[in-house]
Each structure stands twice: as C-alpha cells, then as structure tokens.
C-alpha cells in the first residue's frame, strides 16, 4: 500500500468496529456457535438418529443467521425445505435401512484420523484466507432489507425466469428418477424368485 493510499484510508471516516450499536454481531456469534456445535455433534455422534436430530438444530440455526442477514425469504425457504422435508427424508432413510437405535460402534470408518487431518487443514487454510481477504469489509445492514420477499421475488421473476423454469424441469426429472430407482424392477417380477420375495414382505 502506498503512503498516499494509507493516508486516504486514515483520512476516511472511521470504519465500523467489530460490534455495532444494534448488537446484531453478538446474536450472530451466539447463534453461530450453537450452529457449529450442533454440526460438530451431528458429524461425530455415534447414534444415527441423534445425528439427524442435531442436523435439525444446525439447519435451524442457519435459518436464524439468514434472518440476521436480512434475507427473510431464504430463511423461511430454509425452514420449509431443509428442516421440514430433507430431515424427514433422512429420518425415513435411516428407518428404512434398519439403522440401529442406540450407539453403533461402526458409525465412523477407519480413516477417521486422516479425515480429521484433512478437515482441520482445510479449516485453517480457509479461515486464514477469508479473514485476510475481507479484513476491511463491512456489511451494511441498515436501511431497507436486502432480502425481503418483495425484493427476492422481483429479482427472481425479472432476471432469473429461465433458470427458474429449468429448475422445475430438473425437479420433475429428479422425482421421476427417484420413483424409477425405488420401485421394484419389472424384470424380477417375471423371475420365479419374485413371488417369494413378495410374500416375505
């Protein structure tokens, strides 16, 4: 940084600190700690159903973070889709694969320490780079909210209509694909083994 630029930075109005008078940082920090703790428990617990339930806490905490970032529409979509349907799907998957209730000792694979090394190295590198890159960047949360339903809807249906429609086709394809994958194959129905299987179910 040249001296002129340095003086320009110094002459600029004092940058906002790490805390604002509204205290939104404190709320963000507390909810973030809860979210991160729930995520950590969710990936380390040995009880499979508890992992899904801690995932609910993590995803709900993220919805609160969206609200604190004034993105209310995203927050409610997060509550509806993630907390409402994805976790229910995961719980149904756990039940349909006969996941053991209670502690299962083989929830983690043998390469846990390699995974921990990779994750910690990635976390250190990412946090270092992010903090160093955005050291002097502040989000201005005052004024009209940037993510109300009106603003999001206007931008979505003014600029993003074609991707939106393509996404509906993708969802339809995923629906059909899930049905095709999860129903029994027709070829096996003709085989002699199929009636026994049907009777067993």
């Amino acid at each position, binding site marked *: 940084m040249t001296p002129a630029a340095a003086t320009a930075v110094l002459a600029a109005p004092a940058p906002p600190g790490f805390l604002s008078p509204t205290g939104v940082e404190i709320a963000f920090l507390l909810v973030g700690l809860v979210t991160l703790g729930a995520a950590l428990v969710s990936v380390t617990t040995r009880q499979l159903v508890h992992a899904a339930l801690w995932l609910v806490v993590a995803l709900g905490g993220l919805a609160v973070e969206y609200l604190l970032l004034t993105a209310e529409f995203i927050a409610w979509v*997060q509550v509806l889709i993630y907390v409402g349907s994805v976790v229910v799907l995961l719980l149904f998957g756990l039940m349909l694969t006969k996941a053991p209730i209670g502690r299962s000792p083989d929830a983690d694979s043998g390469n846990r320490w390699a995974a921990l090394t990779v*994750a910690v190295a990635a976390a250190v590198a990412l946090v270092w780079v992010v903090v160093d890159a955005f050291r002097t960047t502040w989000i201005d949360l005052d004024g009209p909210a940037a993510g109300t339903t009106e603003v999001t809807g206007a931008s979505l249906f003014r600029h993003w209509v074609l991707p939106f429609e393509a996404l509906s086709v993708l969802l339809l394809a995923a629906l059909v694909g899930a049905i095709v994958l999860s129903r029994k194959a027709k070829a096996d129905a003709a085989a002699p083994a199929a009636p026994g299987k049907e009777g067993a179910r």
Partner: protein
Amino acid sequence: MHLAYPAVLSALLFCTGLYGVLARRNAILVLMSVELMLNAVNLNLVAFDVWLSRTARETLHSGQALTLFTIAIAAAEIGIGLAIVLAVYRNRGTSDIDKLRDTAEGPETAGPDTEGPGTSAAEKAEATA
C-alpha cells in the same frame, strides 16, 4: 456487521461437513454431511449478496437466486441419493460404503466374490479401531 463473521462460520461449517463425508461409514450420514457443506455455501452466497447489494448496488440479487436454486437442487439430490441408498440396501443388505467395493482396483479384488476379503478387512479395521 463485519463480513468475516458469516465467512468464517461458513468455512468452519464446510470443514465440518468435509470431515463427516470423509469419516462416516453409513451412506445416509454421508448424505447429511453433504447437506452441511451445501448449507455452508448457501450462507456464503447470502452474506455476499447482502454485502454486494448495498456496496456495489447490485440489483440482480444473484446470491439469493443462486441460494434458492442450491436449496432446490439439494432437495432433488437428497431424494435421488436416498433412492440409491435404499436400492443398495435392498440388494446388499447394508448401506455401509466401506463394503461396496465392487469397482475397486487392487490385489484383493480378483473376481466377483470380493465381498469376503472386503468385509474381513473392514472387520479387521473395526477390531483395531
């Protein structure tokens, strides 16, 4: 608000999901960790969208639109993924990804009966763990 708060939280959540993907054995738990990673990316998108919409007067709101698309694609992905896991469980009787070694290359995969050495190696690793 300093931009580092959401960015650091997002990075830490992403690495938590990364650990879960690498360390978990049950396929459904791996899918849950993938959801965590996707959510970390969503938080980053929303934070940068709020920052840019005020600082750079960006009116496209691309971050929020991409977040909505990511959420929808994640819902599709979890549906397809669970259908695949259930099909695998119906065929094999297990959803442990350590035991699905049919396409693995190496000395222990000699023929179609690779289930025996694979499971024995997995059980050995379990016993030592």
